[in-house]
């Protein structure tokens, strides 16, 4: 009986562990993807702003657009965990 209880606990724990791992991967990988996407947008935005200060707002907007990818990852992670 004791052995059976232990097995259910282990199974629950490992299911939780896998969920946590999945959530971690979802945030981590999408974070890397966002970084790659922003890698070229960032310098371009800084360059454009350096030449024309009025572009700051637009440049900032373009720079944060790839942030949506990591937000999707975060949403998936939250759905997995709760």
């Amino acid at each position, binding site marked *: 009986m004791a052995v059976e209880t232990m097995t259910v606990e282990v199974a629950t724990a490992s299911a939780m562990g896998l969920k946590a791992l999945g959530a971690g991967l979802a945030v981590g990988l999408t974070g890397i993807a966002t970084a790659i996407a922003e890698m070229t947008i960032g310098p*371009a935005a800084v*360059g*454009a702003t350096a030449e024309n200060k009025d572009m700051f707002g637009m440049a900032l907007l373009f720079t944060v657009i790839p942030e949506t990818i990591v937000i999707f990852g975060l949403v998936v992670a939250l759905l997995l965990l709760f």
Partner: protein
Amino acid sequence: MADVSTRLAPYVYVCTRMRVRKAKLLPREDYLRMLNMSLTEITRFIEETEYKSEIDELGSSFSGIDLVEVALSWNLAKEYQKILEITPGALHLFTQSYLRRWDIQNFLTILRGKHQGVAAGRIKEVLIPAGKLDREFLDRLLTEDSVERITEAMRGKRLYPVLERELPGALETKSFARLENELYKGFYSELLSDVKSGVKGGSVFLAYIRLEIDFMNVRNLFRLRSGAVEGDIRDLMIPDGSFSIDELQRIAVIENAGDFIDEIQKKAGLKSITGLLEDLRNHRPIHEIEIELTRFMLAEMERLSKRYPVSICPILVYLEKKKYEVQNLRALARGKESNLPAERIKSYLVV
């Protein structure tokens, strides 16, 4: 990943800055508006653009056409120096090599000015210290009295071997034309050897330089034709373009204008020029042909810069377009000062 980002980011940064600067250049409508203005109005108009600081700074020392001339030269030099400051790595190397052409122009201006006995102050007004020879060095050259002493002061510079070889002949014939040709040929051969030295991104730069050499050779062919120059023209052509020197010689001696244009059209590398050459079949003045060719060259370079958006091309296109903007403004100001009709001035503008 860090390696990729550290290499790519500065390229993107500089190329974007160049694109924004290019977008700030004067549009066609502004030139058309300036055609109907007087010299004073033109000065006031360009004071409201990127040339403001130079016009303000020089306003107390110069006036009229001199003010425009000096302000334009200063602005161009400042712009080029600024670009050199912000370009990183291989881009800096290429830009510096490309801007060395201004050394030749400045040196020849000093040489010609001194030879004609022009005052050092007047020569200084038209110098554009955008290359390796900086303002201090050019000032030092200006203090020298004779052509020989100026040449001697260049000892140790890249131009010196060609100068040493060609100057006696130039002084004998009292013409610096051959010396100028040789200097530019030397410049292009050095440029090509820099490009082929294996620096990353060199192949795009090579394509750009080849395009420029082709256009210069074609332009020279048209010039020789309009000047009815016959005989051996091999010395006047720049090697290493799409055309070999022998091919250029063969084309130069073709008498019929139609056949002459056909021969240029046959060249695979210059396919895009076909439409333009068709247009040139009608007899037009040489300066119009040159302007058309320049316009076309700029469009081709622009196309190249779009094909390779993160390369040396956007920088070079900006350098060229800026140069022609300054030339246009100078032509406008000079034309207005000489009371030329607007239509005549317009035919000299590259817009």
